[in-house]
């Protein structure tokens, strides 16, 4: 058992902003059912400002549904969701206004195919935030620069690779100036060789102190970038702790089972630096 436990920045308190009293995201007693299918069965979760939390778990565990409940793309059946101190589940809240502070990145990118890359970034700013043409264009250009795609400004999404599309999608969310970013399996639809660029952008955001909630299967990313890892199974949070602990030394049998099935070869690669087999324990 190696570098996992030696990593110095497992302490969430060492984020650039330092600790902050009020959690940026708070989920309390969250339940979500689709008909008879109870997908979330009582979730409590707090994410502090500047914290990066990766949510892992087998498919069907409810992790994507949880993420989609945080910006109310899915209406919770029961329970409360707070973002930035505002209760989104309060019926009096203007959800459109609240969502402007929450950026979301989808597995399928969901860029607007009828608009150029720049227009993908400027249209939401202009229609939703009522920014002027010049200001929106300036912010769009700056954010394309951030994700390293300034030269694709005039291209249409269909001419970009999946990795480039996803980086544009991240830039589009960032252009709205969000305080929180939600990532729903952002690299799951990508060819393996394109994953790295997207993760690099996410790593950059994490380093800049963005509050991030990431549903992912990228265990290397979770271990290296996340402040906390949450393991979900069967609609509940099974384990919640530092990456070194949840991924490196899971306490629960279900976590161990999931990790050993999912990660064995990948972990071996990363830990040994050579192709081979090594258990995560």
């Amino acid at each position, binding site marked *: 058992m190696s570098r996992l436990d030696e990593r110095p920045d497992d302490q969430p308190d060492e984020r650039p902003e330092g600790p902050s009293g009020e959690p940026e995201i708070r989920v309390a007693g969250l339940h979500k059912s689709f008909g008879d299918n109870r997908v979330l069965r009582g979730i409590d979760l707090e994410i502090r400002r500047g914290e990066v939390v990766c949510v892992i778990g087998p498919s069907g565990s409810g992790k994507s549904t949880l993420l989609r409940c945080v*910006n109310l*793309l899915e209406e919770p059946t029961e329970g409360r969701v707070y973002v930035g101190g505002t209760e989104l589940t309060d019926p009096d809240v203007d959800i*459109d*206004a609240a*969502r*402007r502070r*929450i*950026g*979301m990145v*989808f597995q*399928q990118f*969901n*860029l*607007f*195919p*009828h608009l150029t890359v720049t227009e993908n970034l400027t*249209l*939401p700013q202009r*229609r*939703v*935030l009522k920014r002027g043409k010049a200001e929106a264009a300036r912010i769009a250009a700056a954010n394309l620069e951030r994700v390293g795609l300034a030269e694709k400004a005039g291209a249409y999404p*269909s001419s970009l690779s999946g990795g480039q599309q996803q980086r544009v*999608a991240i830039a*589009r*969310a960032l252009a*709205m100036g969000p305080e929180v970013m939600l990532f729903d399996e952002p690299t799951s639809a990508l060819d393996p060789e394109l994953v790295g660029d997207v993760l690099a952008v996410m790593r950059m955001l994490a380093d800049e102190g963005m509050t991030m909630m990431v549903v992912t299967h990228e265990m290397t990313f979770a271990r290296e970038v996340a402040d906390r890892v949450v393991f979900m199974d069967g609609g509940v949070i099974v384990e919640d702790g530092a990456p070194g602990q949840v991924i490196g030394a899971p306490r629960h049998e279900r976590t161990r089972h999931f990790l050993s099935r999912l990660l064995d070869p990948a972990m071996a690669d990363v830990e040994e630096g050579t192709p081979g087999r090594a258990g995560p324990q």
Partner: protein
Amino acid sequence: MADTKVPPELRKKGLTRSQKRRLSRGAQYVVFVAAVAAFVASADWGRLKNQFAQLDIAERMFPDIITLALKNTVLYTVTGFAVGLALGLLLALMRLSSVGPYRWLAGLYIEIFRGLPALLIFIFIGVAVPLAFPGTEIVGGTYGKVALALGLVAAAYMAETIRAGIQAVPKGQMEAARSLGFSPARAMVSIIIPQAFRVILPPLTNELVLLFKDSSLVLFLGVTLEERELSKYGRDLASQTANSTPILVAGLCYLLITIPLGFVVRRMEAKAQEAVR
């Protein structure tokens, strides 16, 4: 060469397959040539030429058939299309509404107006409405009536096309728009409808072609000389001159528009097919 490969018990008796094919094709050519020959022999060519190809009559139709009749046909079609598009979009959104009565109302409208002949709608607008509501004036006189009648018919068809187009836009587009802070209405207008229209441009153009032809129903409204379109103009001239040439010329004017439009539709469809791949 066949005898080298085909074992005797599998060899066909009688004609080979290619022989049969050649025989069948030859028979079809014989029928075709016989039919053409019969037509040419039996037709009274002098009479046909007199009836349909009187150049002086055709000449007399210009420029009015273009500047008046074709212009009016285009005007009726375009205004009818505009009314149909606006009403069709409204009906499509009603069909997709979460409010039951809107859905039912739109569904009822679509069923009724798709089930009625366009001619009946024209008579209804031209005759029944003025009788039933004396004093009501439809804005724009004949032009308004035609736009309304054509629009009412077209809307029913366009509504179904537009609805299908909106539903063809992936769900993720609405989710992405909502997650960026768009309201449902604004997302529909800015994100969903523009994409839907790219999908339904070919069928909508087809509808334009249909309307172009349906505008001939103006014939039954009773129009002034200045309001005549291609069909009415052609028929009037045909009865004045007791000759069919004007009908032929009017027909050619329709084809002048409908054939290129049809070509454009096929091009758009082919392009859309390519984009899917």
